[in-house]
């Protein structure tokens, strides 16, 4: 049906409005990151919508070790490396376990009710379990260690990796594995030779999605780390100074760096995510 012109115009403005609403915080982080001190402190109540005198000082403040007077000098490097380490290892755990679990569930109906129990893991708020976990981790001496954080990341994101990949495996006809098996492959051979190549797009996108989840976690890292293995989000929250309070400029600089991978990956895997999130609701 042909839409009336005013409906089209209305729709257009609505879309523009909503898009701006969502993009404004991102814009604000990016512009703030390049504002000099007087602009981001907004001294005198003046708001600067654009960085009038763009500068890299915010980045210098958190990355350069030369500014020895500053308590935050060079402190951002370690959290970035920490975030990378624990997110990548956590993702690897979730993916390796998830791929095999999803394949078993998809093909052999393995585990009975286990898949749904996995899904239930997502149903109660993390805050409800994080304190008991902290106590367990304290006993195991895994607080503030890379493996302590990576393991819990792998566990928490496992439901996503399993259910996303299950939908991708479900989409691959069983006859393809069977054809390979009749041709002489073992079950595991059929999986690696036939199913994996067909599912690699889905697997890659699941991995990136899980990585984004791990990368942007705040709560778990806040509670399970304290000094050596703090991640970017936790470190951002610590950027304070006695003189001016929250250091919004350096926070924005670090926030911008932290925001880049999710944005890039999110765009890359958007197509797969829309499909995966229907959780098999669409059947061919």
């Amino acid at each position: 049906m042909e839409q009336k012109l005013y409906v089209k115009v209305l729709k257009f403005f609505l879309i523009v409005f909503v898009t701006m609403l969502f993009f404004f915080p991102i814009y604000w982080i990016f512009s703030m990151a390049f504002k000099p001190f007087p602009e981001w402190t907004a001294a005198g109540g003046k708001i600067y919508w654009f960085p009038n005198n763009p500068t890299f000082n915010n980045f210098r403040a958190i990355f350069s070790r030369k500014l020895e007077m500053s308590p935050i000098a060079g402190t951002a490097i370690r959290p970035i490396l920490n975030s990378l380490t624990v997110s990548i290892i956590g993702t690897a755990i979730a993916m390796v376990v998830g791929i095999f679990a999803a394949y078993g569930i998809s093909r052999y109906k393995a585990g009975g009710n286990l898949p749904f129990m996995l899904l239930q893991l997502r149903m109660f708020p993390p805050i409800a379990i994080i304190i008991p976990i902290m106590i367990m981790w304290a006993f195991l001496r895994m607080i503030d260690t890379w493996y302590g954080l990576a393991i819990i990341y792998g566990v928490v994101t496992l439901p996503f990796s399993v259910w996303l990949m299950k939908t991708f495996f479900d989409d691959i006809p069983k006859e393809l594995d069977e054809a390979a098996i009749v041709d002489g492959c073992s079950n595991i051979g059929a999986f690696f030779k036939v199913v994996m190549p067909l599912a690699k797009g889905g697997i890659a996108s699941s991995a990136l999605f899980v990585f984004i989840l791990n990368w942007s976690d705040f709560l778990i890292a806040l509670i399970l780390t304290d000094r050596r293995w703090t991640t970017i989000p936790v470190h951002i929250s610590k950027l304070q100074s006695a003189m001016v309070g929250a250091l919004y400029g350096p926070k924005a600089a670090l926030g911008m760096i932290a925001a880049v991978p999710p944005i890039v990956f999110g765009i890359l895997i958007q197509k797969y995510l829309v499909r995966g999130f229907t959780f098999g609701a669409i059947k061919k």
Partner: protein
Amino acid sequence: MANIVLDKLVKRFGKQVAVNELSLEIKDREFVAILGPSGCGKTTTMNMISGLLKPDAGTVRFDGSVMNNIPPGKRGVGFMFQNYAVFTYLSVYDNIAFGLRIRKMETEQIDKEVQEVARLLQIRHLLSMPASNLSINDMQKVALARSMVVKPQIFLLDEPLSNLDAALRNVMRAELKKIQQELGQTTVYVTHDQVEAMSLADRIAVMNFAVLQQYDAPHNIYNRPKNLFVANFIGSPTINFFEGRYRGGEFNLKDFSAGKMSVSKENKKQVDDSIRGEDIVLGIRPEHLKVGSSRDGVSGLKAKIVSVEPLGSKTIVYMHPDGNPSAILKSSMDSDFKPKIGEMTSLIINEKNLYLFDKKSADLVMRFGS
């Protein structure tokens, strides 16, 4: 080469019995079709022959050796799936070479075999194409090539033609028959299409409700169906059934007002000897049930014509028997037959074309005229 013996195969899925005590012997180089409606257990049977499923009881034997614990890849079978299972991420060439590579064949040898099979199926021009770009018809040929190239002793085809359009189905049917005769493998062919089964197979195994109903040559399946199910399943349009009773040389048929049909003297003794109970079902195929007023074989039975389907080569006439307006009779007449709808007509039945079934057991007790 290879013969296949299935001995009392049983397969259950949970509580449901998919195949029940199936025994079947397939001779070397024979073309056998397993025919039945959806869910009758024919694909399950096929999967047990290929080894993709393990039987819960019974044995599968190839050439006398038990195969139950041999993995599918070591059984020497070629399997063609209904949805073709072509690996879309590979080229046509790599698809066909897949099985040979797993068998670790030399590269030159693989190339020779692939070219040979591609020539046979006339798909050489497709070899370098990605398999994802193929039309459904070409995909079917690639699937066939892939299962043929490993030179299986036994060839298993699971409804290979059911996704094709009608015209190509006929072409491929002829093609399959030719290839099978050339290569001479033992072939098992699963289908729900009776025309495919009748035209291709040396013998047909008709299955229903997980049980083998009849296993015989197509001619016998059609002419001597073992029970009501087989008689009803084979033949298009389907066979006509008249329920009734037999007593003292006379059939008393429920659906007709003048429901008496006497048995001729020469057949009476045979009917008396073979009949098991009074309740019987008479069967007659539409091509043997004629309409009109010919003198020979007039049965005294009357029916009302309700609709007519001119098919070109013949005309199908649908009727209600005069005693039961909810029953339908079918008659296949010559195409120049022009009946009037609503007209009452006589049925012409030649006794030698009748099938006599026992109602209780549903088994054929006698075929007149043989």
